[in-house]
């Protein structure tokens, strides 16, 4: 192992301002990723997953969002202090992103081929003909015949569009791929096709990946590491086996209990009570204390830190030292 991680996010804080209200979207998120790994960033709507990914690429909306503090170290280089020009050479080239909704992620007035071609030409100095040939090759790679280069996005189905988006993201063979719920908008059978393809391509291109999802099933299928996101921070981090076999944080445990069991009998679901705290006014103590069945006075007063449980497994909960669960 080298002295620095491939990607390290340290104490990232992002705020949105809307109508004089400050929305605390990301509150000190930290995690790291080794080369070749896939990290699952799991959490519910509003947990700050997408904001974290957009912060890495620095494509947050200029006016509304601001990165308050933190470091994003990519091969040791802090992306948050890099020049805009340096960022442009990284975006799409070294780090690429796949957005959630393929219906809106493609420019409706440009041929799909050109949109891939554009990505290639931005980061390579090659002849146009070669760029086009490479774009066509990318299309074939994701299972779309190259003859459809000149078709427009609306001529494709949702699954095909997402394939185009993936082709575009992988066009410059990025070292890191940020996938923001890439299959949420797709039907299950299509989702299965796309996930299979992504796994194959990831192996072929040796890409590291951050997979943002709310679906624990997808995490089990594609991820090596998992970071559970809640109210803008990481509450639990570990290998996939750590999280699935030995979840420590009450929120992670609650998530598993909320899922209908596919194999066993029909037991009554045990949902997590209540809702995520309002990101405008976060509580002082643990963000999950309100909904936590084990919460104590301490949990409501002091904000817990992410601490090592065993091996790589980390958890942000006093419960571990209290010995109440886990």
């Amino acid at each position, binding site marked *: 192992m080298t002295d620095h991680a491939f990607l390290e996010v340290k104490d990232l804080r992002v705020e949105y301002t*809307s*109508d004089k209200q400050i*929305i605390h979207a990301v509150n000190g998120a930290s995690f790291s990723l080794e080369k070749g790994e896939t990290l699952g960033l799991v959490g519910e709507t509003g947990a700050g997953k997408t904001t974290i990914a957009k912060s890495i690429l620095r494509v947050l909306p200029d006016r509304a969002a601001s990165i308050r503090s933190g470091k994003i170290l990519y091969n040791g280089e802090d992306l948050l202090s890099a020049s805009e020009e340096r960022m442009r050479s990284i975006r799409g080239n070294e780090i690429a992103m796949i957005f959630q909704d393929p219906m809106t992620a493609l420019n409706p007035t440009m041929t799909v081929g050109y949109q891939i071609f554009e990505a290639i030409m931005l980061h390579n100095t090659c002849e146009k003909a070669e760029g086009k040939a490479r774009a066509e090759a990318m299309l074939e790679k994701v299972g779309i015949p190259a003859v459809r280069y000149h078709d427009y996005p609306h001529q494709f189905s949702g699954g095909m569009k997402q394939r185009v988006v993936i082709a575009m993201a992988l066009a410059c063979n990025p070292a890191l791929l940020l996938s923001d719920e890439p299959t949420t908008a797709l039907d299950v059978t299509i989702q299965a096709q796309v996930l299979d393809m992504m796994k194959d391509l990831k192996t072929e291109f040796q890409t590291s990946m951050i997979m943002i999802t709310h679906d624990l099933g997808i995490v089990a299928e594609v991820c090596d590491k998992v970071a559970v996101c809640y109210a803008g921070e990481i509450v639990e981090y570990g290998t996939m086996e750590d999280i699935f076999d030995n979840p420590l944080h009450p929120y992670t445990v609650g998530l598993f209990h909320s899922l209908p069991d596919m194999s066993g009998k029909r037991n009554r679901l045990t949902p997590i009570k209540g809702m995520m705290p309002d990101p*405008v006014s976060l509580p002082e103590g643990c963000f999950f204390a309100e909904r936590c069945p084990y919460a104590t006075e301490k949990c409501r007063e002091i904000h817990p830190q992410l601490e090592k449980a065993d091996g790589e497994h980390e958890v942000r909960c006093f419960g571990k030292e209290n010995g109440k669960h886990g």
Partner: protein
Amino acid sequence: MKNEPSNKRRSQFSLVMRRLPKNKGAVVGLVIIAMLLVIVLFGDYLTPYDYYHQDYMNMFSFPSRAHPFGTDSFGRDIMSRIFYGARFSFWVSVGSVIISAILGGILGTVAGYYGGVADTIIMRFLDVYQSIPGLVLCLSFSAVFGPGTFTTMAALGITGIGSYARILRGSVLQAKGNDYVEAARAVKASDFHIIVRHIIPNAISPMIVSMTMGVGTDIISIATLGFVGMGIPSHLPEWGAMLSEGRSYMGIYPHLVLIPGIFIMITVLSFNLFGDGLRDAMDPRLKD
């Protein structure tokens, strides 16, 4: 983000009213409209002269203490005439917009809600109607109805139904596609109930905005008619007619043209500003 849930009943109107003051343009617009309304309602008491009083000793006088806006070629006090003209422009434009909006609104709602044959007929009719120049319609209707304030209002109103019908049809179609309409049908609500309780409240915002701005447009139309000597009876002062009269002397007495024009512009501006602010305040995507 999320508002602290309120235990008090708040109407949609109050929500708009709470947002509106945050928009500077809308506030400016509203203040001007309020001042205009004062002129419209109490104009007679605000000037010492009658609009028809001719003072041959004081023809073409520039703005002065006695005549703040000066006098015209007959020595009539321009301020009095402007104030009188405001009354005409204001009521006729507001009235015509209401007529357009009601007639156009009914057409648009029927076309959008019922669709099918009704929609086809109404839209084909509008295709025909809107390819006829507004001036032709308006002047012909004026001719049919005969001269007068109310007939001018009606002529302008009938001329303007096309755009309102199209606007409301569009937003009715949008509202109709929502599941809450299905839900209302599932509890056996009548079409009338659905239109009145669900469709109209959700489709009306763009219409209200364009009605507000439509008042401005109609004020310009009235001035255009006045300029060519139509609309209001010629002995009464009207802003467009005043412009037209003043035009011959504008090289020497520019105030004859400047003052009516400025009034037209400020009035139109105020309605546009207010409408623009309303559009933002009524945008359902914005949370307060």
